[in-house]
């Protein structure tokens, strides 16, 4: 899952940065009389680091910007026909209709709210988030998700909305084809 990759890459990079800081701190002494050549070497390393950063930046952005979740509902093609779903939030409950699907089906959640800002977060049967969007007053956000696993999915509220924010939960059942 994306989250595991993100965690793995993050902890490696954070750890590497931390080690660099620790190493430089331990190498503060002894002083070097002629610091010029060391600084020049450092600037050369920086050029390489800048190049690496640019490659990572362009590569990751190119790849991920091709996978945007933003759906123009009018651009739906017949081959990927989706089941429209009304997902309405209010303090403090969800009303989701329909709420049963089959594996392989694509749900097109039309998410809105009757009162304050809420957050629509779809959790899979392993209780990991697989899709999210905001529920905004005066707007309907469209989120498409294709169910690939059977089981009980949960919808949690992921935008703080008041005293029962943590209790706003709904279930979606997905059965085998």
């Amino acid at each position, binding site marked *: 899952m994306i*989250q595991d990759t993100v965690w793995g890459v993050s902890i490696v990079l954070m750890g590497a940065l931390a080690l660099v*800081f620790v190493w430089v701190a331990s190498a*503060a002494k*002894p002083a070097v009389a002629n610091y010029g050549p060391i600084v020049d070497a450092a600037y050369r390393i920086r050029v390489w680091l800048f190049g690496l950063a640019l490659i990572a930046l362009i590569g990751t952005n190119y790849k*991920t910007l091709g996978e945007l979740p933003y759906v123009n509902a009018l651009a739906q093609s017949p081959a990927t026909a989706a089941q429209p779903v009304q997902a309405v939030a209010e303090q403090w409950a969800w009303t989701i209709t329909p709420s049963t699907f089959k594996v392989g089906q694509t749900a097109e959640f039309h998410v809105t709210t009757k009162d304050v800002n809420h957050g629509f977060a779809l*959790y899979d049967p392993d209780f990991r*988030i697989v899709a999210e969007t905001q529920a905004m007053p005066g707007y309907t956000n469209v989120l498409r998700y294709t169910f690939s696993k059977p089981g009980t999915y949960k919808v949690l509220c992921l935008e703080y909305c*008041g*005293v029962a924010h943590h*209790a706003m939960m709904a279930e979606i059942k997905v059965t085998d084809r």
Partner: protein
Amino acid sequence: MTMAVAAGRTAINPRAAVIGYLAVSGIVLLLMMLLGLMMRLAQAQWIAVPPNFFYMVMTMHGAGMVGIAGLSSAAVMWHFVRRYVPVSTAVFLTNLVFFLIGAVLILGAGFIGGFGAAWTFLFPLPAHSGGLWSVNAAASYLFGLVFIGVGFLLLHLDIARGILSVYGGLGAALGVKQAFGLADAKDGPPPAVTASTMVLIVNILGILLGAAVLVVSLVNLYVPSFTFNALAAKNMIFFFGHVFINATIYMSVIAVYEILPVYAHRPWKTNWAFYLAWVLSTVFVLTVYTHHLLMDFAMPTWALVAGQVISWLSGLPVLLVTAFGTLTVVYRSGLRWNPAAALVFLGVAGWSIGVIPAIADGTIAVNSVMHNTQWVPGHFHIYLLLGMVAMVLGFMTYLTNPQPRSGFAWTGYWLYVAGGVIFVLAFLLAGSISVPRRYAVHIAPWLPYDRMGSIGASLAIVGVLILVARFFAGIRTAASAKDPS
């Protein structure tokens, strides 16, 4: 105008005013850390608190921390920039007075009125309490923020006046010509002036938009028929919030530029890259705020794509200029580590390391599954607890003339570092398994992370308590030290 002349014009001792800022910040920081610990203990189910109390404390913790982040880092900025430009101690103290008035209004709104809409007061939540707080309690909170914002606005305007009187223009004070090779870097402004200029540009804009949405919210409270586009309000709130909290790091980093060279006996190199980093940061901080709105599908797609791309670009000045500069100032400098130098060094490390999870979450494909999980407080506590706070604690320690062998200070330092690291890792781990943020009640699978976070927080609090106590113990030294001429 020299600093001596400026000081002579007022009876208030500027050094005492700075210490006043830091004393208030130190005490409030510890109190807010205790509120934060209470939240983690409640989530860990090691203590039991009713949800409405949890959310009120959560609101107070957020507002209090953002407030003293601003207050303490403004003290750092003002202390150093006044060496180079004329500023008014009276305006500096006025900001403190406005801050304290605002703080009383905010604390009253929460602890007396039960206000618990989160520090971000996301429209129209303050007016929809479900019976838990009154309209007047919400208004007290919003007015409190207005007071604090007005105080900072006055401070930034006064510094702008001083900067303009010396440099003639904000571009000159920012080092724009030096950034683009149109002027010699040797003729560029000192780092404290450049940083102060960047911050006043972004904060004046941020505070004005924040004030506007606060006024909208206040009117809506008493005149419910006065409605406002919720997405517009959200843009304004997140523009204000993003700019203001980022500005606190850009103010407190001045401590790094000014303090590390003292102990390393090496100057901070203000070359073209330094000025370019600050010019770019000015633009990036103003334009990246849509990375808070990546799950608002109603936003124009180009604005959200820009939020992602600019998030990634923002990491470059931090890592390749500030972090890089810090490392090259220290390496083989002969620096004898003392707690002040170690704290500002830690602050840069924290800021740099925090860039990684921040950029991750600023990537739309990642945000789709990590938005508003505990990954978010994970990343911003690295920036703030182990970044900005470390820089400010370093400044406070520096004022008390620390020695390398201050044993007890080192104990405080390492407890703070170890506790802070455990604390933030617990948040990141929890976010990676989709634990939501801002939940008063947690379920069984999440408890081990909450407990890890509680232990980390406790250690960090003891460490910070030691460091703040040492500041108070050394306050006479801090008050009587002479500013360099």
